[in-house]
């Protein structure tokens, strides 16, 4: 991806309160420097000239790619949740788990706080990410404006921080190694679906460009 820096801004602004500043001007979210941001070409990114923060990236075919990957994520999510995750065999006893049974067991042991945290980070947050991406992008593709778009956007931004599937996969790796000594652990179908989901959803998020959505919205209106 090409990276260009914003150019310095030295002009004076004379606008009324609440009035929007021309789109070409942005302030860095990390150091507050005002800079002119020309049209960012597809496949390129712009960084703050002072602190290097990412100001804007415009992935190639961002909308289509995000939509396709979000749809694939939805399918993988269903597979990851409904098939057995791991099976564990010890002295002839076999235990099978899927993602939800671990959460339910924690709750039954009186550790509701941890159960809630795990539920949020590996089930609810990824689900909300997929649902919100589809909620925003499907209507836009059909030239309709989704209801409460700003709210959906805000929720998407907050939810992203709490979606931690990649960390969960490392946790599985460590857990399996720990149990190897006790018994045999067999990975199930869902674990592969989960790993794939992590990659596909990360791709969907990486190719999502909120600024392009706002631009599209103005075209429709």
């Amino acid at each position, binding site marked *: 991806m090409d990276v260009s820096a914003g150019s310095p801004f030295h002009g004076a602004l004379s606008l*009324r309160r609440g009035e929007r500043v021309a789109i070409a001007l942005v302030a860095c979210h990390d*150091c507050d420097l005002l800079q002119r941001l020309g049209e960012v070409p597809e496949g390129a990114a712009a960084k703050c000239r002072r602190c290097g923060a990412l100001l804007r990236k415009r992935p190639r075919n961002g909308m289509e790619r995000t939509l396709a990957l979000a749809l694939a994520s939805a399918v993988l999510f269903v597979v990851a949740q409904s098939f057995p995750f791991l099976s564990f065999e010890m002295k002839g006893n076999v235990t099978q788990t899927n993602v939800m049974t671990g959460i339910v067991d924690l709750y039954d042991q009186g550790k509701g706080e941890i159960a809630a*945290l795990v539920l949020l980070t590996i089930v609810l947050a990824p689900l909300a990410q997929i649902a919100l991406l589809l909620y925003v992008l499907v209507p836009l593709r059909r030239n309709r404006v989704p209801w409460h778009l700003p709210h959906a956007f805000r929720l998407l931004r907050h939810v992203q921080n709490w979606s931690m599937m990649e960390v969960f996969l490392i*946790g599985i790796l460590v857990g399996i190694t720990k149990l190897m000594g006790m018994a045999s652990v067999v990975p199930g179908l869902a674990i592969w679906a989960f790993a794939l989901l992590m990659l596909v959803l990360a791709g969907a998020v990486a190719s999502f460009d909120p600024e392009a959505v706002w631009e599209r919205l103005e075209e429709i209106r």
Partner: protein
Amino acid sequence: MSARPGTALAASCASCHDCGLLVQLSDPAAHGALCPRCGAALHERKPRSLERTWALVIAAAICYVPANLLPVMAVTSLGQTEADTIMSGVIYFLTHGSWPLAIIIFTASVFVPLMKLAILTFLLISVHRRSSWRPVERTRMYRLTEMIGRWSMVDIYVVTIMVALVRLGNLATIEAGAGAVFFGAVVVVTILAAESFDPRLIWDCSDARTT
């Protein structure tokens, strides 16, 4: 607050926290302006950033102590119960020869939370002292804390998986311990602390110095 011309603050503008649109605020003291594009409340800086971040950093530091002292899980096998703290888990992997896993767990559960707390405390103090020392590097440190915090969740997931898999009645069971609850609290609270800190405060001080 006097800022160097060239920042949004100096031009009495604010960029929307939610959609990034740059908006003019003619009266900087006026609150309650809304973003014309997405309707979010506009602030020049995250509101009460320093107070909030301090409160969360202190809360996380307090939870960090029981998180490391109390057992994160207890393994009952054939009538014998063995409790594991975070450090004893690391030592278990070391003595069993799987040092890569020992390093992963040590980094994720001990080093990362401590480093996050240390960096945030350092940044808070540097802003209070109106330091103009290396703002670019300090901003990078902030971005690092934002990025790595989630990796501390590894230990929580290890406990979840072990609890779910080992349910063999009298043969063996694994229970999550109180340490895991405190540890989860450390992770959540440090993530919230990093979110509430405003990196632009680092630049406000050095901008004021250079004018």
